[in-house]
């Protein structure tokens, strides 16, 4: 079968750091075209990574690519993805899927219209330790989930464009940007969010750097999600069940489990899944792109499709208490029951 021609829209640090190694790690795709509004950056990216085509115009992609990675600021995800999807070009769109449900729905509709696959970049579902945890939870290792606590915060960041801090262009702050990973994982592990209560330090002109989300899940489990761009927090999710607990690292490869009934836990308080001293590079982006390629070829389904991406954005929007139509300014506390 011919290799799929892949393009990148948005030649920024996310594309460079995460998606380029993934493209190199999936032999079924061939780097073909790069698009960026900054011509110098597009040309430099194309030269450096061996893309035969570069352009500043999205429209020029038509007919040259089969699948595109959209790595743009949040506010451009929907418009660019819809344009591509409606022309039958498969899209891997970075998270968050879009700023609100209306935009998300338009992407899902465009994918249906164009008969194209849409994959949302919740790459963490492909991390080894998180996949193992999912497998163990499905086996009922810790019983019924009763509580979920997630934390992710770091002061270390790369230079961001002003769009990341503008509430209108980004759709949200640390909860939308960082917390959405944990929201997606909590949904994957434990089910839908029923009720959310948000607090954050956003101002009318700048998105929040710190956010806290208290929530109740559909199965009655309660939990808390804390995210920060200004503080170092544990990067982990702790899931407590009726029969034990699991702690899983969001940045590292660690997974700690405890079950009240397992043979291995008769004498050990908990069990740590092996953490390599020299861990291999994060392969989640490679596996994510591989999943999309396989879905395009009809071998498997997209793990995080448009509906899944939209559900995570829905939780953030309910937390912010914003209308589904457009992002509005948000600050302080709001409660958003379904």
């Amino acid at each position: 079968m011919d290799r799929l021609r892949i393009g990148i829209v948005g030649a920024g640090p996310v594309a460079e750091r995460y998606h380029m190694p993934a493209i190199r790690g999936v032999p079924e795709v061939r780097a073909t075209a790069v698009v960026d509004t900054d011509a110098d950056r597009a040309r430099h990216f194309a030269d450096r990574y061996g893309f035969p085509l570069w352009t500043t115009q999205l429209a020029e992609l038509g007919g040259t690519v089969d699948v595109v990675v959209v790595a743009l600021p949040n506010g451009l995800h929907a418009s660019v993805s819809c344009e591509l999807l409606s022309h039958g070009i498969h899209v891997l769109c970075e998270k968050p899927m879009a700023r609100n449900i209306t935009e998300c729905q338009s992407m899902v509709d465009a994918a249906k219209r164009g008969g194209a696959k849409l994959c949302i970049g919740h790459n963490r579902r492909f991390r080894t330790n998180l996949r193992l945890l999912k497998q163990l939870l499905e086996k009922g290792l810790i019983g019924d989930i009763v509580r979920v606590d997630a934390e992710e915060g770091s002061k270390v960041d790369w230079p961001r464009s002003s769009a990341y801090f503008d509430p209108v262009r980004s759709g949200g702050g640390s909860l939308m940007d960082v917390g959405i990973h944990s929201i997606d994982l909590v949904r994957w592990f434990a089910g839908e969010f029923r009720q959310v209560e948000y607090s954050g330090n956003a101002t009318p002109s700048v998105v929040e750097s710190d956010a806290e989300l208290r929530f109740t899940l559909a199965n009655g489990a309660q939990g808390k999600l804390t995210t920060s761009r200004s503080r170092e927090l544990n990067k982990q999710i702790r899931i407590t069940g009726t029969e034990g607990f699991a702690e899983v690292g969001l940045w590292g490869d660690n997974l700690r489990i405890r079950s009240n009934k397992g043979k291995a836990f008769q004498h050990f308080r908990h069990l740590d899944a092996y953490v390599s001293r020299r861990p291999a590079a994060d392969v989640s982006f490679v596996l994510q792109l591989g999943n999309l390629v396989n879905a395009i070829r009809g071998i498997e389904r997209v793990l995080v499709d448009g509906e899944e991406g939209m559900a995570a954005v829905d939780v953030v929007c309910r937390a912010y208490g914003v209308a589904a139509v457009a992002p509005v300014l948000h600050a302080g506390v709001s409660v958003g029951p379904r």
Partner: protein
Amino acid sequence: MTKSHIPAVPGAATLSKEKPLSPAVAVIPCEDHNNLLGATSQLRQLMPALLPSVLPRHVVIKPNLCDITAWETGVTTDPSWLPVLTAELRSIRSDVEITVVESDAVSAYKTYRSCDETFDRLGYRSVARECGVNLVNLSNAEAIEISFKDVPYAVSVPMLLLEEFFFVSIANLKVHPYERMTATLKNSLGLLTNADISAFHPYLSTMISQLHTLCTPDLCIVDGRIGLEGSGPIIGDPVRMDTLIFSNDALAADVTACKLMMVPPEEVPHLRQVAGDLGRSFSGFQTIGDLHPRRFAFDPSRGHRSILLKFANRRFHRASELFTNLLVDRFIRFKREPVAFATQAIPKIARRLTRG
């Protein structure tokens, strides 16, 4: 992995309530090698508490199938145990699910032994079919990689260990070139899913001790009808001993096996390690029945000392490799992000040194 000294496991403690309070051993003579049923009946009369009165739904039996050779050689476990144990266990709980487990292996002579072929050729497949018992090749089963303290490699264990089950270990009475003797405790090495465990040999004692904690046998059987003397564990001559050892404690069973073979337990590295880790001595358990010991000929190959030296050398090399990796990692990190290194790593190292 962290070892717990707190019995904070209400679910897992259910079984131990039914056990005798202290480790106990029953030594049963078995001159008629075809009468295992009679031997277990005798056990029930002598020390009924060694057999469980309640069982979880699942029972796992681990025989010793380290080579494709008949049980009369003293190397492997007799498949005749399956019908005997199945009947015994089903009399306690009729709906019990019994699984026999073993894994693939690469022998000391670097020959590959398929567990499935072993099941077939030693008659386990047909006996298991008759008894309604599952046979599982752990090397093909779902596994999880964990780390053992002081073992610098990942250890792959089956996910089965995360489930609740009653564990029966059926071991042989054999000499062993590195460990002097092998019985119940070392039998658990077959729970590792890796076929080639030669990388673990320099860490054998600590591996065996931690595996014992990870998957403690609830019923230990050392089949001493026929033992193996010579080089071991697959090379040597069969010795007729006509003895079965039953215990609720692997250390007690193996110490009794040592006595039977006239091997001082102090000379067995993994017994020293397990006793030390558990804070126990080689005595302090109740024994019923008479032992008729016989000194097992131990004929370690000429290279025995050089093998031990090789293991020490490997440990040193691995430790120095890891230490160098650590230094290189830190240096690279420092070069890449000096500020982050200074603000995060240095205080962490300082704290560790202060604690140390």
